């Protein structure tokens, strides 16, 4: 069998842990192939991505890269919005963008995925999408972190700016409302909600975190702002996004809880704040997260009701 490539299909360098995982888990790829065939069969139907429980379950098992753009556009409702507003994206370029905002975007373009071997060709598009979005949504404007979200979507959509714009808009405005605004009100509220969920489910872990003196918000700001891009391994973060586009915001809470639950024994063993930070920093190299099938299975197995989140959100909505 051929050795795994050191560069993944998205242009990112694989870490040693991922290389080892690939070497040792051939059945993981048998699964992938099977799944690809099932999707091909689905795609050949007359109305392949008709919203249904079957489709939802298909998506939970992961969307193949070549169908991701199509499935994301369909599930998020962006496809319909593009049809309704076919010129919206283009028209945004008729206006002069605000210099100060454009300058802050320009700073981040070369800093986005500098090690990705394909990303150079997407840099102009990234600039276009972020500037257009900032002008379209002045309340969010540009928030650092959106460069990673838009960058990942561009890679998945092979540089399709319009699709990227609409998918970014969906994630920022619908899935993570007020996370990226100037007040970051939604971000602070939802991190309080996750903290409460952890307190209820894992009181000991929460106490340990308090004892070490690292508030959850310090760890989780990046998780929430980037929607796990640059946090989880690439393939795993895209699997999370498959579910985010298909099932919505609840997946953010499920994913956060899953990460903490998986790391709970390690957190309890940690002796100081340094080891703790190291533990969270290494999520992208940890085989428990690299194995995207197992991780997603765990995410979906968690018992978490939309209602529980809604009640907690209401309790914390007055903060800040």
């Amino acid at each position, binding site marked *: 069998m051929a050795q795994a490539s050191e560069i993944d299909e998205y242009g990112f360098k694989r870490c040693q842990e991922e290389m080892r995982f690939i070497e040792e888990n051939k059945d993981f790829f048998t699964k992938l192939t099977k799944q690809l065939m099932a999707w091909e069969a689905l795609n050949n139907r007359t109305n392949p991505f008709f919203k249904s429980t079957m489709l939802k379950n298909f998506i939970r098992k992961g969307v193949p890269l070549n169908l991701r753009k199509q499935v994301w556009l369909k599930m998020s409702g962006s496809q319909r919005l593009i049809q309704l507003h076919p010129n919206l994206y283009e028209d945004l370029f008729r206006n002069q963008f605000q210099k100060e905002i454009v300058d802050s975007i320009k700073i981040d373009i070369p800093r986005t995925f500098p090690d990705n071997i394909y990303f150079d060709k997407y840099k102009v598009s990234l600039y276009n999408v972020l500037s257009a979005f900032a002008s379209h949504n002045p309340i969010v404007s540009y928030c650092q972190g959106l460069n990673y979200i838009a960058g990942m979507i561009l890679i998945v959509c092979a540089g399709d700016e319009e699709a990227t714009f609409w998918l970014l808009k969906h994630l920022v405005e619908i899935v993570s409302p007020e996370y990226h605004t100037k*007040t970051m009100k939604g971000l602070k509220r939802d991190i309080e909600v996750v903290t409460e969920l952890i307190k209820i489910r894992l009181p000991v872990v929460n106490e340990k975190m308090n004892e070490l003196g690292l508030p959850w918000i310090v760890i989780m*700001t990046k998780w929430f702002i980037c929607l796990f891009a640059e946090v989880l391994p690439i393939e795993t973060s895209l699997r999370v996004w498959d579910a985010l586009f298909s099932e919505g915001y609840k997946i953010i809470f499920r994913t956060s809880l899953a990460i903490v639950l998986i790391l709970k024994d390690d957190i309890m063993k940690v002796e100081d704040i340094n080891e703790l930070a190291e533990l969270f920093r290494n999520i992208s190299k940890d085989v428990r997260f690299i194995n995207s099938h197992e991780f997603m299975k765990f995410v979906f197995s968690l018992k978490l009701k939309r209602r529980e989140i809604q009640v907690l959100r209401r309790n914390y909505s007055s903060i800040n």
Partner: protein
Amino acid sequence: MANNQRGGGIQRPNGATQNKICQFKLVLLGESAVGKSSLVLRFVKGQFHEYQESTIGAAFLTQTVHIEETAVKFEIWDTAGQERYHSLAPMYYRGAQAAIVVYDIQNQDSFVRAQTWVKELQRQASPNIVIALAGNKADLAASRAVDYEEAKQYADENGLLFMETSAKTAVNVNEIFLAIAKKLPKNEGTGPQQNIRPSGNETNRTSGNCCSK
């Protein structure tokens, strides 16, 4: 890989009984893209990346420098520079014993922003916080927009340590951390601010002195 002695100072053989270990919390603040993360990366790992990824929220690292008999361990909190992350900043500088406020010598606005950070720290952070001002990207002095003298004068008037640094060439990077380490109180029982840990919702706790023999 991290070489704990790289921070400068005098190397001590292990097992010297008089060695003390002090731990301090240090926070980096400053406008976006002035080089906060690059300074940390240079100091902690001796590396430099031309395009350092932007920090979202905050990053946390540690490094130790040695001053005579004392090992000074820095808990470094590197923060996001964009203005909207500002409301999270108090959580990072709360309980910090030291801060490096960074600006880019090519960017006057970033110097103005640095002064705002200094004011905020003087008003809101621990009263005995040691603040250093770093004029970074000193290797790009050809396109300088902030005078050395102007910054030096500002620093003197406000009781700040001051150096122009370059994360790229390593100039003054270890030196600024070392200067801070020297200025921090290392005697036992020097005050209640020692080793205060940040914490989310509750009030600060103290956990004894910074030093242990």
